[in-house]
């Protein structure tokens, strides 16, 4: 079995009451359809009402750990950048 025949896929699952897809893990499959089926067996136990996304691992571009500073450390002394001064009405959920 060569890895080109059975490439790696990343699996994202949204649970029945979940709001967003969460990365669940990865698996090998020959194509997208079988990746979906394998994901169903491996990560959802076939629970109803879930949504699965599979993405070939090669399609994902990750941020580099070396660029961590400019990427993830915004100037903390500019509080107006952070939307923390608003009052949120009770009716608004999942903000």
């Amino acid at each position, binding site marked *: 079995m060569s890895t080109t025949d059975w490439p790696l896929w990343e699996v994202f699952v949204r649970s029945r009451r979940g709001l967003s897809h969460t990365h669940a893990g990865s698996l090998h499959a020959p194509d997208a359809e079988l990746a979906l089926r394998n994901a169903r*067996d*491996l990560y959802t136990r076939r629970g109803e009402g879930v949504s699965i996304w599979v993405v070939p691992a090669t399609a994902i571009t990750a941020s580099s750990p070396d660029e961590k500073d400019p990427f993830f450390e915004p100037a903390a002394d500019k509080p107006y950048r952070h939307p923390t001064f608003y009052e949120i009405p009770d009716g608004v959920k999942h903000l």
Partner: protein
Amino acid sequence: MTAALALGDDALVLSHRLGEWAGHAPVLEEEVALANIALDLLGQARVLLSLAGDEDELAFLREERSFRNLQLVEQPNGDFAHTIARQLYFSTYQHLLHAELAAGDGPFAPLAAKAVKEVAYHRDHAEQWTLRLGDGTETSHERMRRACDALWRFTGELFQPVEGLDVDWADLESRWVESVTRVLGRATLTVPEGPRTGAWSAGAGRQGVHTESFGRMLAEMQHLHRSHPGASW
């Protein structure tokens, strides 16, 4: 309960065959898929055999001649293509049958309604792999063709009426042939030629007449229970 035994034995025997793949499947993901299907079938077998009597006694203490399963499900795993061909033939049958039972109001309707979801998945799995092997490499095509041919002679038996099941068997058979023909066509395979029943296939699993390898399978399956009769676990 003739029908409970027949359907229960089908599920039990095929479940055991699929269990033999554990640790030997082509890839890890496929190993999980086959084990999942085996577990679904074992669950179905337990319910059905419990309707007919004590599930452990029925599974572990009956002789070969008392089993009522189809000869198709007792066939050895062979290569992966043989296992997939067996799955395709059987799960298509099981899906059509359970859908019909679930729609009726017979004693098996509630059970079939639950099983039909599992079986739809089994059928999909078998169809997906038939397409990939049939329309894959030259070798996989040839192996899949050989497997479909080899098991074809056991498919006539699927539509022998089972006492206690109110099913239009001729209609079930024509829908089965149509479905299998369509899948094989898409997989660039031709429908095997040759009879689907005949003296040489016996075709009498439902009457307790089984093929050679079934006895060995039972010996392995029943060994522990027979060595320690009455033990609980």
